[in-house]
């Protein structure tokens, strides 16, 4: 029965700051072992909703459940199951990496061997072994991110909330981070990870949600969203003769928009999936047009993101 219960569930979550609707009626679910990408531009409300999930803030209205427990009414139960990696993290002076992790392990109630196991495991997993004695105030951004990830998983939580874990990382570190996240998910962790960049998440996420101005605009697998918003695909054809007749022929059809003729090249937007594009091509050939090339450009993830979001920043 553990498998039917979503590990993360947002129920009509609202959070207002005075007049700012930072989170405005957001609902979604994440199942066990799933990596959910939370994508939106600056000020979209990602951090706000993640902080509510991490029991650092309270919703104005609505609730969020982690493993079935309300973040409002059972924060302590939520906290035992949840690891949170904030976008900016505070450090202590005069503390090295091992002491830092050790402190949080103690704070999560790990004792004795359990704690040394957890430390060893986490330092191995995040490759902090070599940095154990390094003071945290002297760490680079990438090292800090790893330490912070390590801290958030020290108590072996079943749910991880990672707020922009890849921000400020070099390409290699990003790839490693992606592998770490995938590996965690393969071990049954449920992960909610936020980012500004859809392509960054596309590979590692099972599903994504796109949020802007506090509202969830789209949820689903990346391809689903891509398909859902690729209603208008850009088609470019090269026709050898009868350009004017083709233009007329196309203009008479209902599913064509933005028709542009440029010498032999004809470009337009077509509302229809790939099957319908194939049908269109056959009809053109049957109508005796000499088509030399037919190209269809499906919208890239960036295009989809730009299409879904309006670029409003609150």
């Amino acid at each position, binding site marked *: 029965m553990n498998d039917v219960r979503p590990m993360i569930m947002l129920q009509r979550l609202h959070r207002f700051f005075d007049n700012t609707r930072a989170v405005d009626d957001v609902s979604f679910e994440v199942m066990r072992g799933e990596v959910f990408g939370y994508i939106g531009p600056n000020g979209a409300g990602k951090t706000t909703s993640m902080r509510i999930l991490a029991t650092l803030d309270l919703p104005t209205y609505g609730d969020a459940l982690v493993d079935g427990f309300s973040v409002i009414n059972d924060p302590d139960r939520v906290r035992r199951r949840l690891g949170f990696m904030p976008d900016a993290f505070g450090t202590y002076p005069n503390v090295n990496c091992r002491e830092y992790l050790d402190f949080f392990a103690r704070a999560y109630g790990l004792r004795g061997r359990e704690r040394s196991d957890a430390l*060893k495991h986490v330092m191995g997993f995040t490759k902090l072994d070599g940095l154990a004695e390094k003071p945290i105030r002297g760490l680079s951004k990438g090292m800090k991110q790893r330490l912070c990830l390590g801290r958030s998983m020290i108590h072996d939580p079943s749910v991880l909330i990672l707020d922009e874990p890849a921000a400020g990382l070099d390409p290699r570190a990003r790839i490693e981070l992606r592998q770490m996240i995938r590996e965690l998910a393969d071990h049954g962790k449920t992960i909610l990870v936020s980012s500004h960049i859809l392509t960054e998440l596309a590979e590692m996420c099972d599903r994504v949600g796109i949020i802007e101005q506090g509202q969830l605009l789209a949820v689903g697998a990346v391809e689903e969203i891509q398909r859902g918003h690729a209603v208008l695909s850009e088609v470019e054809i090269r026709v050898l003769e009868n350009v004017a007749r083709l233009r007329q022929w196309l203009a008479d059809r209902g599913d064509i928009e933005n028709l542009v003729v440029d010498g032999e090249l004809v470009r337009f937007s077509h509302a229809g999936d790939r099957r319908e594009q194939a049908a269109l091509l056959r009809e053109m050939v049957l109508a005796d047009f000499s088509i030399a090339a037919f190209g269809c450009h499906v919208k890239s993830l960036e295009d989809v993101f730009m299409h879904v979001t309006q670029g409003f920043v609150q």
Partner: protein
Amino acid sequence: MTSMDSTPAPSGLDEALSNPFRADHQRPSRASRFDATIDRLSERLNPILVKEARQALKSRQFVITFSLLLACGWAWSLVGIALASPGIYFAPGGTFMLIGYYFVLAAPVLVVVPFSAFRSLAAEREDGTFELLSITSLGSRQIVTGKLGSAILQMVVYYSALAPCIGFTYLLRGIDIFTIAFVLFYTFVTSVMLAALGLVVATVTRSRQWQVVLSVLLLIGLLVVTVAWSITAVNIIFSGNSMPYQTLDFWTSNLAVVTFCISFVVLFVLVAAAMISFASDNRSTKLRVVMMVQQVLWTGWMTYCWMRTEADEMLVVFMVFPGIYWYLMGALMVGENAQLSPRVKRSLPQSFLGRMLLTWFNPGSGTGYSFAVANMASLFLVVAVLGMLAEAAALAGAPDNFGWLLFGLLATCYVVIYLGIARLIVLGIRQFAYVGMFVPFLIGLFVSLLGCATPAFLQAWWFGYSELEYSPFQASNWMWTLAEAANDDLLSTPAVPLVVGASAALVYGLNLLFAIYEVEYVRQETPQRVIEDEHDRVGAPSSEKSASGEDHHLSREP
């Protein structure tokens, strides 16, 4: 580097398991053996204490303070001996030396330690590390006690550093061991209280600007207390050998003082913990319990004191401090919000008796008001019964007039009236705007001062300052009226007690009308999922860990 090699190899794991405190194959160095010992000792300690102890060893502030303390201690030893030099071989010089050492100790212990306790909690909140802490399994009370613990640890270190010097003063004679212990002990107690207070101050606000203002105020406060206590301490040291160590009263009164100090430390710790706890937590019930305990302590010690001294002024003193105490606490409680979160509602009392007796411990302005009033009233009852009994039994301590009775009654009535008015004002404001707890507190203070100042000022204005005599017009002026009552002069104007009593009844009635709904809260069902989890946790007693998540730790997987 692939993700695969990040899983630790089983052999390394086994090694770590068999020798948890040694990560490598080398022979343990002295430092790591030391670490291992500390680790074993620290297993049960508060994690914050462990962390801060480790940090302190590397922190510049601690090292500097410690070296300064040592340097000053030694410097004073040399200078002091030089100053007292010709006489030191035959005249007792202990008193003189101890005063110097006292100041060397007081500066770090009374100022630096409490202030750094304040800073360390405030810094956690500013740097965002507090949020990371607050989502661990550490409770807010553990966080506060950890901070207090590390403050105490620092004090202990400073004390031990100066211990040889203090021992030296004893050898010089002129001061007995009791006096030394007395001064050092109370310096310690004061320091702990100040540190706890510093922690409370750290939780008052999160804004950086206010934090700066508060830190200045705190520093001034610490200096004032330090100076005040130092004057006392120096006096005690000088009059050292005349302290009544042999009498029972000396010990009982000290016991009383110490129990109060402890109760205030507990109160401060719980207040600080409540301030930093999660918004849906019950922030008041525990505090009210502590207040109740303080009330019982006060009643007990004052009764004892009255019986020993047989002075009827005691019956007035009996009511003075609780009057101030309950007014201030009441002003804070009146500002509480009566919106109980579902989480709090889960543990509300259910039985009739439980609801009748325990509802007053629920968070809320109405219950807070009633709680303060009920405590004040019951204290008055105790005082009245004690006085009457003494009177009836014609004991030696029996009061020879009724000023004390009137004083107690009026003090209770004033608390009822002014708290009630403050509460009604707060409820009024809450209809239109959000107010926290600080504004109601200020309103409470303001209302009571206004009640004093207005009639005094008007009377002075109309009749001139020279004619300023007590009149029934001053009924709302609690300071003057109570002073009259205590001096037994009030019975010449019997209208005043009547007016005050009637207003108290009126204000109380009005307030009850607005408190009804707070009493109507009933317990809420605990959700099924929580019961399930509770069951799981009890059913799997192996460790906290196994209950913390259904899945095993990654490292245990193949």
